C-alpha cells in the first residue's frame, strides 16, 4: 500500500514537472518602459503647445489659417504615429516568447476585452497581422489607435479646431494610458529581478 502511494505521489510530481518553466507573459523590456516615457514626453509637449494655440470656446466657423486647425497639425500627428509604430515593433519582437498556455490565455483575454469594449479603430491601427499578438503588443496597437483617433476627432471637430479644455482632457487620457502600460511592464521587472 505504501509503495503504491509512493508511486502515485511520484507520478504526480513527475506530471507536474512535465511542463517546462511557464512563460505566460512576454518578458520585461526596458526599451518599452523608457520608450513609453519618451512618448509621453513628446506627446505631452505637443498637447501643451497645441493647447496654447487653441481657443477657449468652440469655434462656429472654419479658419484654415488658425494655428490650431487640424491641417496645421498633420505633421505632429504623423510624428506621434511613427513613434507608436517604433514601440509596437519593439513589443512585437518579444511577443513569440509567450508559451502555448500563455498564448491561449492571452488570446481569450483579448477576445473578452474586444467584445466588452470595442476599439475605436476597427483594426485601422493594427497593421501587423501576426498569428499571435500578446497583450503587451495589443496595448501598443491601442496607443497607436489613440493617436489615429485623436487626428480623426480633430478633423471632425467644429471648425476643425479643438478647445483648450479638449487638449487638457487629452493629457489626462495620455497619462492614464502610459501609466497602465508602465504598470504592466514594471510588474514583469519584479520577476526578471529574481
Amino acid at each position: 500500500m505504501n509503495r503504491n502511494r509512493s508511486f502515485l505521489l511520484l507520478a504526480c510530481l513527475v506530471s507536474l514537472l512535465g511542463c517546462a518553466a511557464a512563460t505566460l507573459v512576454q518578458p520585461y523590456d526596458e526599451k518599452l518602459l523608457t520608450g513609453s516615457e519618451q512618448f509621453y514626453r513628446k506627446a505631452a509637449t505637443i498637447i501643451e503647445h497645441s493647447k496654447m494655440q487653441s481657443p477657449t470656446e468652440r469655434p462656429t466657423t472654419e479658419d484654415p489659417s488658425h494655428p490650431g486647425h487640424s491641417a496645421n497639425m498633420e505633421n505632429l500627428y504623423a510624428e506621434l504615429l511613427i513613434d507608436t509604430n517604433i514601440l509596437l515593433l519593439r513589443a512585437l519582437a518579444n511577443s513569440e516568447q509567450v508559451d502555448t498556455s500563455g498564448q491561449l490565455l492571452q488570446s481569450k483575454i483579448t477576445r473578452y476585452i474586444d467584445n466588452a469594449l470595442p476599439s475605436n479603430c476597427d483594426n485601422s491601427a493594427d497593421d501587423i497581422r501576426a498569428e499571435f499578438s500578446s497583450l503587451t503588443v495589443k496595448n501598443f496597437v491601442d496607443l497607436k489607435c489613440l493617436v489615429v483617433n485623436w487626428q480623426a476627432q480633430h478633423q471632425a471637430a467644429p471648425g476643425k479646431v479643438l478647445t483648450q479644455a479638449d487638449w487638457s482632457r487629452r493629457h489626462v487620457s495620455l497619462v492614464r494610458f502610459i501609466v497602465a502600460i508602465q504598470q504592466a511592464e514594471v510588474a514583469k521587472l519584479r520577476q526578471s529581478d529574481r
Partner: protein
Amino acid sequence: MTTLNQIDIGNVLQEALASAKNAAKDSWPAVSELADNIARSILIDLEYVARQKVLGQIDEYGAKIFLEDQRMVARARLRSLAIVTLQLAEDIINAMLRVFNAAAQKALGWLLFPVG
C-alpha cells in the same frame, strides 16, 4: 508522511506552497491597485463630465471625444491588469516548479527538467 529516498513529500508540498505564497505576496498589491483604479475611474469620469456640463465647461463634442478616449484607456488598463495577474500566476507556477524539481532531483538522482 511518505518519504522517497529520504525526501519527505509532505515537506516538499509545504515548501512549494510557501514558495507560491511568497511569489503572490510581491505581486498582489499591483493587481489589487490596478483593479481598484479601473473600477473607480469609470465613475470618476462620469461625475467629471456631469460636473463640467453643469459648469458649462464641456459641450457635447468635448464629452464625446473624452469618453471615446476613456474607452481606449479602459482597454489598456484591463490588459495591464491581465498582464500583472498572468505574471503573478507565472511566478507561482515557477516557484512551485523550482521546489518540486529540486526535490525530484534529490529523490530520483536525476536532473529531469531544468527550470529557467
